[in-house]
């Protein structure tokens, strides 16, 4: 097997383990760290898919941003509780069965899907292309996203703030 495949297997293994860690570990803090790991692994997957830009975005924005927010949130709640939150799980088996069933269902489809050959040449310079796309055909979506960000931020602040 080629190096690419090997890399994929390794990354995939890492990603899956990290994900399992996220959903299985008892310590919430560790769970978040596992999540960070998972996100990083995902970023690496992007890299394997020759999308360096997204790799960066994933690392910075996602792994960075999200994890930070989460840590803040946990620390905040823990401060409010006053002790370390250990989280437990419920009905592991049911969850496992359902999730497995969903996975099987999806996998069944994917297995039946046609197998396109990878495009020989990746798209021309991604960053420029993305930039053009964002101001071009997807400008409207971009604008909306901005509105969404503002509104959500507003709402989040409103809900989270202590006064009134």
């Amino acid at each position, binding site marked *: 097997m080629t190096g690419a495949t090997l890399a994929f297997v390794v990354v995939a293994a890492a990603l899956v383990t990290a994900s399992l860690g996220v959903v299985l570990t008892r310590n919430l803090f560790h769970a978040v760290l596992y999540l960070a790991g998972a996100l990083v692994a995902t970023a690496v997957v992007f890299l394997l898919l020759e999308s360096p830009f997204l790799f960066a975005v994933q690392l910075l924005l996602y792994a960075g941003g999200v994890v930070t927010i989460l840590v803040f949130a946990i620390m905040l709640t823990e401060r409010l509780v006053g002790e370390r939150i250990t989280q437990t799980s419920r009905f592991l088996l049911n969850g496992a069965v359902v999730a497995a069933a969903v996975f099987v269902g999806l996998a069944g489809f994917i297995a039946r*899907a046609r197998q396109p050959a*990878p495009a020989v040449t*990746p798209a021309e310079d991604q960053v420029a292309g993305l930039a053009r796309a964002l101001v071009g055909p997807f400008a409207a979506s971009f604008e909306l996203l901005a509105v969404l960000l503002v509104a959500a*931020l507003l709402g989040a602040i409103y809900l989270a703030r202590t006064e009134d």
Partner: protein
Amino acid sequence: MTGPGLQAYLILAALVFAIGLFGILTRRNAIGILLGIELMLNAVNINLVAFARFHADLAGLVFTLFTIAITVIEVGVGLAIVIAVFRVRKTVDADHLTLLRG
């Protein structure tokens, strides 16, 4: 180069997706559930990028950008709600939130 095919990526994404769902179904702690959602959305990103790569189409990457952004937003709002819940109910155990039922 001959790397793993598209299906490999899709299967991987599906797996992560399922794991995320599993987390949501089983976690008690609201924040834990949020993490599960994160995983699911993350799986979406893998799909998108994989397709973009194998079809050599930028739209997928754009889509990914949007997804990431929206995920972040969702997490933010979600955490805000969790905190609000916590303020009033003094718990983040989702399955204790059963005032409303039936």
